C-alpha cells in the first residue's frame, strides 16, 4: 500500500436534515494527481472545506499529511495550499502585493519574499503582470495567480476546487500543464472538476462522488479495469472470408471473452474482440494474425473514455 497523504474515514457533513457528505472514505496517495469528480451538489466543495479545516465534520475523521483535521488544524494548514471555487480578489492590490501579503501570512521572512514572488510569478507565467492591479487580470490569469498563492509556503498537498471552471479551452490547457508541472515537483494535487477530459488526461487517480458518497475510486488503471471489465479491439479486414478466418483463429486464444462480427463499413469487414489481457496480449494477437497471413487493414483498441465510465457510474445524473 502506498503512503496516503489524504485519508478520510466515514466522513460526514450534515446541514440541517440534509447529508451533504455521507460516509465518505477518500484515499489519496502521495504524489498523485487525484481527480475528484461528481455532479453538481455531490459534496465536492463540502469535502474540500472539511479537509482544509474550514468546516468541522459532523462525524468521521480526516487526515492530511498525517495530521488530523480535527486535532491539528494548524499543522494541516501548513501542509496544504487551498484554492476555493470562488476566486477571492482584493480589488485594491497589485499582483506582487497579493503574493507578498499571503507569503507574510505564512510567516515567510521579508528578505526571502521578493525572490519567492519572482519565482512564483515565473512559474505561473505572470512576470510581465507583476505591477498590475489584481482585478484587471483576466480570469485565466487570476486563476494562475491564485495557484501561485497556494504555493507560497511550499505545501506538499494542493487542494484545488474546480481550478479550470469558467476558463476558455486555452486557459484550461495552461492550467492543466501547470498542474502536471507541479506534480513533477513532487506535490500531490487533489482537485475537483466537472470537466472529464481534464481528469482523464492528467490524473493518475480518480474518485467519483455522488450524493455525498464515494461511488468508485482508484488509479486510472484500476478504474478502467473495474468499470470496463474488458478492452475492446477493433480489427478491420478486406472481406468476409478473411474475417471468418480471423474470427476462428482469435476465438480460441486465452483472455478473449468474445469475438463478434460487426456490420461491414465502407465495403470492409470488421471484428470486435473483447479481451481481458494486458498490452503484451494485445500485441500477441496482432502478431498471430500476421503470422497466419491474414491481411489486417486496421487494428485499434477502442479507448472507452471516462465520460462513458462516468455516465455509467453516476447513472446519467451528471450534466
Amino acid at each position, binding site marked *: 500500500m502506498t503512503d496516503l497523504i489524504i485519508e478520510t474515514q466515514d466522513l460526514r457533513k450534515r446541514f440541517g436534515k440534509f447529508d451533504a457528505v455521507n460516509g465518505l472514505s477518500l484515499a489519496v496517495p502521495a504524489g498523485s494527481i487525484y481527480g475528484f469528480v461528481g455532479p453538481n451538489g455531490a459534496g465536492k466543495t463540502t469535502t474540500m472545506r472539511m479537509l482544509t479545516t474550514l468546516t468541522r465534520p459532523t462525524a468521521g475523521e480526516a487526515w492530511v499529511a498525517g495530521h488530523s483535521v480535527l486535532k491539528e488544524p494548524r499543522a494541516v494548514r501548513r501542509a*496544504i495550499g487551498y484554492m476555493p471555487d470562488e476566486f477571492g*480578489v482584493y480589488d485594491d492590490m497589485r499582483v506582487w502585493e497579493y503574493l507578498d501579503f499571503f507569503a507574510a501570512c505564512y510567516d515567510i521572512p521579508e528578505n526571502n519574499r521578493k525572490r519567492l514572488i519572482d519565482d512564483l510569478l515565473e512559474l505561473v507565467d505572470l512576470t510581465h503582470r507583476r505591477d498590475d492591479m489584481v482585478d484587471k487580470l483576466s480570469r485565466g490569469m487570476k486563476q494562475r495567480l491564485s495557484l501561485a498563492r497556494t504555493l507560497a509556503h511550499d505545501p506538499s498537498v494542493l487542494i484545488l476546487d474546480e481550478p479550470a471552471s469558467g476558463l476558455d479551452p486555452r486557459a484550461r490547457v495552461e492550467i492543466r500543464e501547470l498542474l502536471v508541472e507541479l506534480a513533477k515537483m513532487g506535490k500531490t494535487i487533489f482537485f475537483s472538476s466537472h470537466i472529464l477530459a481534464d481528469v482523464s488526461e492528467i490524473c493518475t487517480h480518480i474518485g467519483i462522488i455522488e450524493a455525498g458518497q464515494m461511488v468508485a475510486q482508484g488509479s486510472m488503471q484500476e478504474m478502467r479495469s473495474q468499470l470496463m471489465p474488458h478492452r475492446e479491439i477493433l480489427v478491420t479486414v478486406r472481406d468476409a472470408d478473411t474475417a471468418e478466418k480471423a474470427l476462428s483463429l482469435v476465438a480460441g486464444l486465452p483472455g478473449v471473452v468474445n469475438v463478434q462480427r460487426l456490420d461491414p463499413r465502407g465495403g470492409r469487414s470488421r471484428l470486435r474482440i473483447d479481451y481481458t489481457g494486458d498490452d503484451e496480449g494485445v500485441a500477441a494477437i496482432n502478431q498471430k494474425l500476421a503470422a497466419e497471413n491474414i491481411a489486417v487493414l486496421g487494428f485499434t483498441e477502442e479507448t472507452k473514455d471516462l465520460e462513458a465510465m462516468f455516465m455509467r457510474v453516476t447513472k446519467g445524473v451528471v450534466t
Partner: protein
Amino acid sequence: MIEEAAPLIEMPEEALTPREHRLERGAAVLRWGAIANTALSVLVMLLALAGGLRLIPDLFPTLHAALLARVAAPDDAAIAGVILLTQVNISLLLVLMVGILAREVWALVGVWLLALVNLAAVAVFGFTPALLTVVFAVWSGIVITRDTGAFRLNPVMLKELRGRMRGVRAFFVLTVYLALMSSFTALLYLVYIPVNRATGSAAAGEVGRVLFMGIVGIELVLIIFIAPAFTAGAITGERERQTYDLLRTTLLPSPSFVLGKLESALSYVLLLLLAAIPLQSIAFLFGGVTEGELVLSFVVLTVTAITLGTVGIYFSAITPRTLTASVRSYSATLIGAFVAPIVASIVLSVVRTALGLSSPIIEAALVYVNDFLVSLNPIATALTTQELLINRQVVGFWTDTLASNGSTIPRVSPWITFTIIYLVVSAVLVVLSIRRTRKVEG
C-alpha cells in the same frame, strides 16, 4: 468596575513551532498577571468597603501606608487611586497579551516599558501593588525577548494601509475633513465675535476657549461617525470578497488579523486627529487655552476612536454583512454612550430630588454614579474635564465636599475613568472578536 476580561481569552489549542509555543507562554504569563491584579483589586475594594463601613477600625490609614505610602493625599483618595491604577495595569496587561499573540513589535517593547513604569511607580509613589505587574511583565518579557525575530510588521495592517493610501481617495477624505473643520472654525469665529461685542465683554481668552471647544466638539462628533464606519466592514468585507476563507487557511494568527484591521483603521483616524492639531492651535493665538487642555482633549479623542473602532470590529466579526455590522455598531454606540447614560442620569436626578439631602452615604453614592455616567459619554467627559480644569485647576484627583454633612469625598476627573472604562471595553471586544474569528464553523 470589576474586570471580567481575563478569563475570556482562550489560548490556541495547538502550537506548531517552538516560536509559537514561546509566544503563547509569554502571553499566558501576562494573562496570569491580569488575573492576579483582578484578584488584588477586588481585595482592595472589599477592604475599602469594610473600612468605609467602619467594620475594621483605622483600616484606611493602614491601607494607604501599605499601598501608596509616598503619596500625600487623603486616605480615601489614595485608596481610590490604588484601585484605578490597578485597573489600568489590568487593561495594559490584556492589551499586551493580545499584542504578543499577534506578534506586534509594540507588544515586545510595551512589556518592558510596563515593567519599568511600574517599577518607577513603586519607587516614586510607594505603589507596592505594582510589584505584581513588574514580576509578571519581566517574566513574560524574558520569555519573549529570547526570540525577537518573532515580532514583525503586521501583514494585515500593511496590506490595508497600502490599499487605503493608494490613489487620491485617502487624500480626498483628508482634504474634505480639513476643509469642513476650517470652515466650521471660521463660522464659529464669525458668529461668536458679534455676539461677544453685543454683550460688551471682549475677552480674547473667551474667544480662544470657544473656538477650541468648538473644534474639539466637532472632531468628537466626526470621530464618532467615522471610526465605526472604518472598521465595521473590516471582517465582513473579507467575507463578502470571499477572501476570508483564504486567510483562514493560512497560518495568520487570529489576533494578528483583528489587530491589523484595527491598527490600519486607527492609524488613519489618528492622521485625521493630528491634521487638526494646527487648527486647534489657532485657539492659542487668542489665549485662554492651556497645553493641558490640548493634551487631555487629544487623549479623549484618541480613546474614543480606539473604542468605537473596536466596536465596529466586533460587530464586523459577528455579523455576516457590512451593512448590518455598521447599523449594529452605530446602534450599540448610540445606546451605550448616549441613550443609556442620558436616561440613567434623568432617572438619577429624579431619585435625587425624591430623596433630598438626607444621608451622606446616599449622596456620595449618587455623586459616584453620576461620575460614572459622565464617563460613559465622550462629549460629557470632554466638557466636564475641561470645566474642572478651568474652574478648579483639577487634572486628576480632587476632594469634594458633601452638601449633606460637610464631609469630604475623593473624586476623579472623568477623563481618567472614561479612559479606563473605554479601554477595558476595547480590550474585551478585541478578545471577543479574536475568539469569534478563531472559531471554525460547525
